[in-house]
């Protein structure tokens, strides 16, 4: 469905992507993992057209979208929930959602209304707050609204950038549950996550980025079992536990 081949993206003189190749098949959840500065968000921004790749190609549904403007890419059906949610602070929840439907030029009022009902069904809280302004919402509500807005576009694929960032554990679980649910209703998902374990638990496949290159790609199950992954991205927690023990010993000694 989405095929990214050898893209190279630069920020001024700094090369952020050094040839990223990945693909997302219809109906999948694909996780994009990696350390800070590995180029995950840059990849997302390049796919959506905010950044322009210097080399490589991006194909979506057999159409070459390399170098297209972000507005046009949104219109042909790639929705993005960027890092930091980016809710319009001065608009109401309802307005934010309605703007999500911008790419659907030909949709009737009824269809949009149906989609709105669907989003409210997934996030019942949003219906209660529909008159509130964006800046009045809390972190969790913002994330719900951001995903809801992404869904309103009716796009076939949804790019999610760090949806769990800054959320309480119980909300993180909720967000991943919702992602899974959305996927079941037929939306393909490309997920960028720092919380690699959670992401791989719901994903079909995963790609691991390091310094602007894909270092590892495999099914989610294989990645979860990979020793190297455990050490670097999944967090075996042995280190932290050791450190804690060391500290306690020190205290006891003193």
């Amino acid at each position, binding site marked *: 469905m989405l095929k990214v081949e050898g893209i190279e993206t630069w920020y001024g003189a700094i090369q952020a992507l050094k040839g990223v190749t990945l693909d997302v098949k219809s109906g999948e959840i694909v996780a994009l993992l*990696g350390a800070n500065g590995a180029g995950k968000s840059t990849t997302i921004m390049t796919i959506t057209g905010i950044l322009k790749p210097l080399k490589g190609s991006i194909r979506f549904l057999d159409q070459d979208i390399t170098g297209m403007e972000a507005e046009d890419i949104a219109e042909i059906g790639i929705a993005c929930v960027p890092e930091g949610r980016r809710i319009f602070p001065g608009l109401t929840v309802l307005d934010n959602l309605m703007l999500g439907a911008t790419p659907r030029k030909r949709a009737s009022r009824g269809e949009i209304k149906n989609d709105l009902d669907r989003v409210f069904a997934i996030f019942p809280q949003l219906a209660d707050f529909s008159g509130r302004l964006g800046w009045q919402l809390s972190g969790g509500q913002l994330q719900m609204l951001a995903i809801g807005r992404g869904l309103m576009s009716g796009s076939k694929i949804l790019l999610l950038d760090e949806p769990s960032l800054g959320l*309480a554990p119980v909300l993180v679980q909720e967000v991943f549950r919702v992602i899974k649910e959305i996927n079941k209703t037929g939306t393909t998902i490309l997920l960028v996550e720092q919380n690699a374990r959670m992401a791989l638990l719901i994903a079909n496949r995963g790609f691991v980025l390091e310094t602007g290159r894909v270092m590892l790609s495999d099914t989610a199950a294989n990645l979860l079992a990979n020793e190297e992954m455990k050490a670097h*991205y999944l967090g075996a927690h042995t280190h932290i536990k050791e450190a804690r023990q060391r500290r306690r010993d020190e205290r006891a000694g003193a």
Partner: protein
Amino acid sequence: MKTIMKNLLILAAVVVTVLLLPRFVTSNYWLNLINLSISFSIACLGLNIVLGFAGQLSLAQAAFWGVGAYTSAILTTQLGLPVWAGMFAAFFMAALCGVLLGIPTLKLSGHYLAMATIGFGIILQLILVNEIWLTKGSDGITTIPSPWIGSLELKDPGAFFYVAAVSLILLSWGTIHLKNSRVGRAFMAIRENEMAAGAMGVDTTYYKVMAFALSAGYGGFGGWMFAHSGSHYISPDTFSFEQSVILLVMTVLGGNGSVIGSIVGATLLTMLPEVLRFLKDSYMMVYAAGIVAIMIFMPSGIAGLVKSMPLTLRLRTWWNADSRGGRQVGGGASPRGTYPGKKAAFQPEDCAGSGEVLLTVKGLAKHFGGLKAVDGVDMEVRRGEIQALIGPNGSGKTTILNMLSGLYVPTAGEIILGGAAIAGKKPHAITSLGMARTFQNIRLFGELTVLENVLIGRHCHSRAGLLASILHLPSQKAEEAGIRAKALEMLEFVGLKGKEDAQANSLPYGQQRLLELARALASDPQLLLLDEPAAGLNAAETEALVDLLFQICTRGITILLVEHDMNLVMNVSDHITVLNFGRKIAEGPAEEIEKNREVVDAYLGTEVGNA
């Protein structure tokens, strides 16, 4: 040695230039224009302080220029004071007006401040026109005297040029020093991020007023020069809003924040209309089109353009390398050998958790209108411990941190840090009492270098004032060396050694978090507040952070932590406080919290066991 030679060489060159200029340029027409552009340059230097350094847009610089001109003109013509006395009066009177404008407009920024300053300029001009008893109204003040040196009257433009040139050189010398001093860094911290500046111990109110006063003072000095040279005549129409705009354009054209840029910009725009006279009717259009073109094609002004030239770049790096060597010798302190850890100056007892209470919070509440964000929270933080504050989004954690660090004034309740009540105090005061913090969305001084960021963290432990900074006194030099040594130590501690000269916002996200930590540590806090330090870090980076937290604790610094990463929280905290809907719902060691039913339901969720 080489540095001294270079400085001497520069000095000699400047002296020769100044001495010889009136020999080559004998035309009064050009000499007067040069004097005029020096007067503008000085006003622009001032504008550069408030706009370029402190980041406050002022459109009243021509008004201050006018205050200076009028003060000196009135004193010398009506009271017969000597012109040199008028010079000081002009400076201080304008600075006073700067304070008067600064105080009521402190809360404002951006467009609002711009508008308020425009208003000030227009009101001042109306006063000049209408208070005829004082200012002679629109007729203006004629036959303003020239300065005298002994029995020599400096009436000739060529003679006055020496006064102008010497003033300009001294003032720009002082301004360059100011930029690289504690005061200058405080200005720039306010420009880059006012909230963070306050949290790092910079008294933002005081420094903003100081920037306004200093900027106005420079403006007044420029005005003095204008009044006593050229036509020896001043009238209100010269000190208009349009003139303020021209001064602003000069400053920005030269390069906002660059001292030399201000001078180049002022000189260029004073000379340009003269040189462009052949364009006749359309030269103001050409000039205006030039302004727009500069904004579009030369974002950082002429100074930026000069900087980006390969030749000067090479010269600069050569020069930097050499002078840095000099500085290190002067500083004398080597960062090596103070590596923290077990061998640090702090004894393990400091970390042992003596049980002494460092921070007490009683009945703390914050209401925003009808919303009770925090509603009567009690908690204690013991010295030497790592305490975590957790809870669902919107439960009031960050609000509590904001009240502790002084960004919010509590609606009710007490906060006692080491015996001192700090509730409602300003952020900078709380910082100097020994509390430092980081922010959830990183708030660095993005345009400044990594080192400068940490130097600002040291603000509350240094003294150098405005005068010492401008004059570059030996005491200030020594203090500066100390600050630098401490900052380098902190950078090494968090692992950012070698990145000193990188621009802060060019660092990758994880390193920005570390830099924020180094900056907070530089203020030698007793209590460190960390707001989601692991947000956006992956497992490996989180592990490194844990090591760092323990090391910080080993240095005797108590930590209060807000964090969602339960793996981190449960493993590092000695104590955990849990909030929900602005109230405390649980408190205790990690083992207890993990099993607390209410906490699991409201916050942790069921999967925490498997994770």
